[in-house]
């Protein structure tokens, strides 16, 4: 993606090219394919209708993602608090057990579960295959844990907003975010950093 959008046709072509990325993101976040489709559609329409306010294509992706994030936030708010995010599912419990198993009784790393050196981040981020694994690991997180994590990381809510939006206590919020990060970390360690580049 380089150069400038010279004409509306260029703009539309680029936008359409982003659609798979947008859809994947929305579907990871919402875990509802139909809703994801609707939200992406709305975001693309909004982008098209406000094209004039956009200048320069280098940040087109960032700009469209910002629009999409707003649409997703609206969708989450509309869906409301019907979801009981604080309930601990069997999947959550098994993530917690996998975490506990990393430590000796004195809460220090056990010899074979010490975190590995993941090498050069830039190098990893440039490998196409890495993203497949990363997305698979995100999808593999328990639904509610993923929802909290993605609101924080992808929709860039403050932690306080995440907690308030989902009616969670602050400490529960922190526990869930820690569970998500560690779950991702263990998934990547097992599926990428041991079988990948190293």
């Amino acid at each position: 993606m380089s150069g400038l959008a010279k004409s509306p046709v260029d703009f539309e072509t680029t936008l359409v090219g982003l659609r798979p990325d947008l859809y994947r993101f929305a579907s990871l976040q919402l875990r509802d394919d139909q809703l994801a489709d609707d939200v992406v559609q709305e975001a693309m329409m909004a982008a098209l209708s406000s094209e004039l306010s956009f200048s320069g294509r280098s940040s087109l992706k960032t700009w469209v993602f910002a629009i999409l994030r707003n649409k997703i936030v609206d969708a989450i708010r509309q869906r409301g608090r019907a979801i009981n995010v604080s309930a601990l599912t069997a999947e959550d419990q098994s993530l917690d057990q996998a975490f506990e198993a990393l430590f000796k009784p004195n809460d220090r790393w056990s010899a074979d579960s010490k975190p590995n050196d993941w090498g050069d981040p830039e190098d990893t981020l440039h490998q196409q295959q890495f993203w497949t694994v990363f997305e698979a690991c995100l999808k593999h997180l328990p639904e509610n844990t993923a929802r909290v994590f993605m609101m924080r990381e992808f929709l860039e809510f403050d932690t306080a907003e995440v907690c308030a939006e989902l009616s969670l206590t602050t400490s529960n919020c922190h526990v869930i975010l820690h569970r998500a990060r560690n779950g991702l970390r263990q998934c990547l360690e097992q599926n990428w950093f041991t079988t990948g580049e190293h």
Partner: protein
Amino acid sequence: MLSCKEVTHLLSESQDRKLALGERMRLSIHLAMCKGCSRYRKQIQFIHRACQELIGKPQDVSGR
């Protein structure tokens, strides 16, 4: 002295809230001595970075 398990929680929370001075000090003492936790820190920073990249916000990681 913080345990490694406690350190993983503080490292995660440091991405979501500002740690108190005492917490930061205990954390840095532990990290200076513990390779496992230092790597853990790098790993979850990497995850944050990957998330930023996924939403089209590439950023400079120099100094991390």
